[in-house]
């Protein structure tokens, strides 16, 4: 596997605030990594460092390049949609395509136009005349027409209704993603993307709490739904989180084999959201 992003001891400080604190990770080609964290956890700062929009301490290599110092070269093979990266409202769709075609060597205008034909975005419309959902469709059409190795999405569906959100991820998977491409995505709507992800990373207070493949989550983490004496026995095995639901105890275990828990109640793989809450609460305690 080729490592597209390689971070070793990456930190970013804003005065006394440590937005990203000594973080190390790798992202391999052909993966879809979800970067999950609460507000202010350092997600956007980390993405900005990856995109070369901000300088940082430590060693960070993206596609073999120093992102901050070789940003222009990097952006030929990397795309991003950020919730704050708003398309200019004054521009016409045709002008936008013409401009991107002129400055981006890996952009196919024909491909973008094909994507746009499947939407209700008119080619002569100005961005200010489009709804928020249509603007996102336009942005995604441009991004999908760029032959990039790494796509970074920072809260790409923020403010969109459920239909647009579903369509967005469906287009992304069906029309864009392949083994040559890699996607790094952050969102608060974890439930909507957890089925797409191949890998997951939790970040809180600038530190990584979890960096694992989705396949390994079922082996490493298990959730037990139990009650009564079984609940007491299970609590003795050291769950990392617990809560009550409909009078039953829900216990989350890390590194405890399913064999040890069988017979104590119903076993299942925890959702990413539950795991995330458990990890963040655990880190705060």
């Amino acid at each position: 596997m080729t490592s597209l992003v390689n971070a070793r001891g990456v930190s970013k400080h804003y005065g006394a605030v440590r937005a990203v604190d000594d973080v190390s990770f790798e992202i391999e080609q052909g993966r879809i990594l979800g970067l999950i964290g609460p507000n202010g956890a350092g997600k956007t700062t980390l993405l900005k460092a990856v995109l070369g929009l901000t300088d940082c301490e430590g060693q960070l290599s993206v596609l073999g390049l120093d992102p901050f110092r070789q940003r222009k070269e990097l952006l030929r093979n990397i795309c991003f949609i950020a919730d704050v990266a708003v398309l200019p409202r004054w521009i016409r769709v045709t002008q936008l395509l013409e401009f991107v075609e002129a400055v981006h060597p890996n952009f196919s205008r024909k491909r973008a136009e094909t994507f746009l034909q499947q939407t209700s975005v008119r080619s002569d419309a100005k961005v200010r005349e489009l709804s928020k959902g249509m603007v996102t469709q336009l942005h995604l059409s441009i991004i999908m027409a760029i032959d990039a190795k790494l796509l970074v999405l920072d809260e790409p569906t923020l403010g969109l209704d459920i239909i647009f959100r579903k369509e967005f991820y469906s287009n992304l998977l069906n029309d864009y993603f392949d083994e040559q491409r890699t996607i790094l995505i952050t969102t608060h709507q974890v439930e909507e993307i957890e089925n797409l992800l191949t890998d997951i990373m939790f970040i809180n207070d600038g530190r990584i709490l979890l960096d694992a493949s989705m396949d390994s989550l079922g082996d490493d983490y298990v959730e037990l739904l139990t009650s009564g004496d079984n609940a007491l026995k299970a609590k003795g095995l050291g769950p990392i989180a617990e809560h009550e639901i409909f009078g039953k105890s829900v216990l989350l275990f890390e590194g405890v084999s399913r064999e040890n828990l069988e017979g104590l109640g119903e076993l299942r793989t925890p959702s990413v959201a539950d795991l995330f809450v458990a990890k963040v609460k655990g880190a705060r305690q």
Partner: protein
Amino acid sequence: MINHYLALMKREFWEHRSIWVTPVAIASVVTLGTLAALMFAGEFAQELDLAIFGAQNIAGDTERKGVLTAYFLGSSWLFLLGLGILTVFYSLDSLYAERKDKSILFWRSLPVTDAETVISKLLTAVLLIPAIAIGAIIVTHLVNLVVTSIWVAMKGGSAATLIWGSVPLFDNWLATVVVVYSVAIWMSPFLGWFLFVSAYTKRAPLLMAFLPLVLVPLVEGIFFRSGNFAEAVWGRSAKIPLFASIDIERFFDENHARVSDEMVSLLAHLDFVQFISHIDTWIGLVVCGLLTTAAIYVRRYRDES
């Protein structure tokens, strides 16, 4: 590389409609003014017949050139004034608008460097806007010459003799190109300053750009009893070393029965060599370069989120 700059300047043209709306508006005003003047002149039929007769039979080619040049000069100054105001507002808005409408992160997601972006905005102010203004001046001249020719013909005069045979188009247009671009180069340190303010300020770029230009001379005057900054900044606009020494009195000297061709040639009054070899021109370019670099630095390193 050049394609990038062309695309970036085209983007400026799309975004800032005032780049072409302003020259078109001035051209319309000039043309309407000419039409109004011609209609007003029609009220004085007798005097008009006499004037056309005199211009055709008594005045020489040089005098006719002089009159047409004076007319050209009047309309061109209007364009220059409009161009100056347009360039100030354009350069102040150019790096501020993309932050205000939050599109900067989209622009920065494309493989275009901050230097290319900022330099394209400087080139738009120094090359593109003047080029469009010069084009508008030329078209306005031609339209107004055609309108005037039709009017002269309707009044029984010969447009071929009075206008097209005498009009110094090449002289006027070349002089226009020299003046417009020399003024753009001369004022380039201001453009660099405006770009820097546009990249730096969080609000009110117009106020932030002009406040220091007013306050610093005041502070210097009060505390140092000198006016060097005011002279360097405000004095600059009045002393462009482009004009050849003109003996104005010759125009009014009654001993000169006729004006000479040199006196009515705009080009003859310009000294481009003096302008381009003047130390102040080069100091201005260096200051423009430094301030543009500062604008690039701010766009590159400012945290926009």
